[in-house]
């Protein structure tokens, strides 16, 4: 389902506007699927059972998958500046349920409305982070707010966060979870942003999401600070599990 040939074939087949739209839909659904896979992988890496040492083989395989996705996204040039119109949208559609990854996007009806990010925190964090919004997805193909700039920085900062994870696995620090999140403020904050999609609106142009993991990036903008309260809350949930 992630075969590269798929999206190009589809774009070639259909005709005219419908064709273009269908192509865009496929591209967008592929991007969404890929993004969702990336999110899921990052969550898997973060949520370890910290009483017993995490399985190194599993962590390495997940990390390699994350690297692959990131490299492909870089090659595809999908690390683009976000379009202003899309930036204003509610970012929840990025958090597509992984159900989508096993069924064609068009087959699936929106299963359940996306819960507000502040709500439903009594549920597990994963369900918080991955609401189903498939109904919205096909309609706004260019809505992916993940598209951002600066692949090289991405790679560096991305690897940095992976490094952190591996170093943590290696040292097996008991406060690993806290260390992952607290050691450098920005990555933790930004990773969380990535997962909860809170960065969505306010920053036109500059890097977001994964790229925001770079610890050297300047402090978050004012609009982001206002979301910190909710962020803390979500992180609490992550840490507690």
């Amino acid at each position, binding site marked *: 389902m*992630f075969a590269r040939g798929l999206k190009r074939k589809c774009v070639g087949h259909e005709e005219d506007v419908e064709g273009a739209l269908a192509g865009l839909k496929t591209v967008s659904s592929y991007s969404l699927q890929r993004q969702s896979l990336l999110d899921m992988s990052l969550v898997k890496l973060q949520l370890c059972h*910290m009483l017993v040492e995490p399985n190194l*083989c599993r962590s390495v*395989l997940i990390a390699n*998958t994350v690297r*692959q996705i990131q490299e492909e996204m870089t090659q595809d040039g999908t690390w683009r500046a976000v379009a202003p119109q899309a930036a204003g949208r509610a970012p929840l559609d990025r958090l597509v349920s*992984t159900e989508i*990854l096993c069924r064609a996007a068009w087959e699936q009806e929106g299963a359940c409305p996306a819960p507000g990010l502040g709500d439903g925190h009594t549920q597990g964090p994963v369900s918080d982070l991955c609401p189903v919004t498939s109904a919205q997805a096909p309609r706004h193909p260019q809505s992916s707010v993940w598209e951002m700039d600066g692949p090289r920085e991405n790679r560096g900062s991305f690897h940095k966060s992976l*490094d952190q994870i*591996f170093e943590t696995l290696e040292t097996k620090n008991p406060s690993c979870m806290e260390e992952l999140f607290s050691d450098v403020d920005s990555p933790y904050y930004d990773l969380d942003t990535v997962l909860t999609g809170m960065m969505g609106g306010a920053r036109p142009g500059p890097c977001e999401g994964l790229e925001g993991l770079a610890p050297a990036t300047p402090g978050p903008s004012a609009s982001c600070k206002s979301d910190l309260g909710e962020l803390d809350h979500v992180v609490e949930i992550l840490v507690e599990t």
Partner: protein
Amino acid sequence: MGEDTDTRKINHSFLRDHSYVTEADIISTVEFNHTGELLATGDKGGRVVIFQREPESKNAPHSQGEYDVYSTFQSHEPEFDYLKSLEIEEKINKIKWLPQQNAAHSLLSTNDKTIKLWKITERDKRPEGYNLKDEEGKLKDLSTVTSLQVPVLKPMDLMVEVSPRRIFANGHTYHINSISVNSDCETYMSADDLRINLWHLAITDRSFNIVDIKPANMEDLTEVITASEFHPHHCNLFVYSSSKGSLRLCDMRAAALCDKHSKLFEEPEDPSNRSFFSEIISSVSDVKFSHSGRYMLTRDYLTVKVWDLNMEARPIETYQVHDYLRSKLCSLYENDCIFDKFECAWNGSDSVIMTGAYNNFFRMFDRNTKRDVTLEASRESSKPRAVLKPRRVCVGGKRRRDDISVDSLDFTKKILHTAWHPAENIIAIARSPPQIIKWT
């Protein structure tokens, strides 16, 4: 072997008498000894249970050589690493029998960090007629002793005694995934995610590191060791598999540190099947030399492959275990099933290979006839003289009665560990309770 019309006649199957199964009872490894007379199972609670085959006797015509519990002992206890504030699980990862050299049996059992050598001895006689002690062991009043007697050995109820003879500790930083006894019967190796150590069976305070794939920077870590085994005949050769799907055959005569492989077995990736999960499903979960020593059997997530030691470019045979899961990889990634490590096994003559799957299914592939069968290790099949009916998984399209659809497979019921008797058609399936199936 056959498919639908040909059903397996099961002469016997054995199960341990448990009316309930707890988490600690989950079997984590099974291993026959070299004659097949004994079967050892290790579980998540750190216990080892050894079953012994009853000799087929004329007195009990119905006895087909059942396996009964021979001995049970606690091999490993849970530990706490105070330095890292982490638990060390007592789960037995692997058991390997040593070749029998005298009346006693010996085996190695390992958890994530520590390997132990256990000696199993039988006692069926005891001395009676001491001069100074009476039957209960109390000292006799010497004035009552009027003559001397020679103590004699009298038969007693069989007692099986197990004692830990060696404890090989502190050899591994990472989790031990395999142990393998060398054909020289003096050394063995233990492999964790990044290193392989060579031990002498008599020396516990020293081990030699023979493979080390830990990168200088842990950030550069992209590959781990998943399994390893000594060659059955050549004591200098061993193989280890990786999470990237490659096998490395190493010769210990070449260098002290066998980081450079003698042979690298790797199948080129199929570009048409490429996906983000390609690497994960190519990760080799088990590698086994054939009894002949000519071939290797590997298991990755969807296939089992037979490799010829003389050909590194690709496997000589590939068998699909459950290809219907290929379209479900994302779900399986989400629920972590994609990381399940299935084992594989050869039969005694290297003509049939076996591996487990989901829904309590296990699969056998006949290398000669190219036929394969799917069987279920269920409660029904555990009754004596049960007939095991081949199962089929349908992928949509025509569905026959008794077929299971892919979506109704139970992914919590997985047969990860299986073992094949070295000579006969007897297999052991790691379920709780464990299942031993024999057929003719």
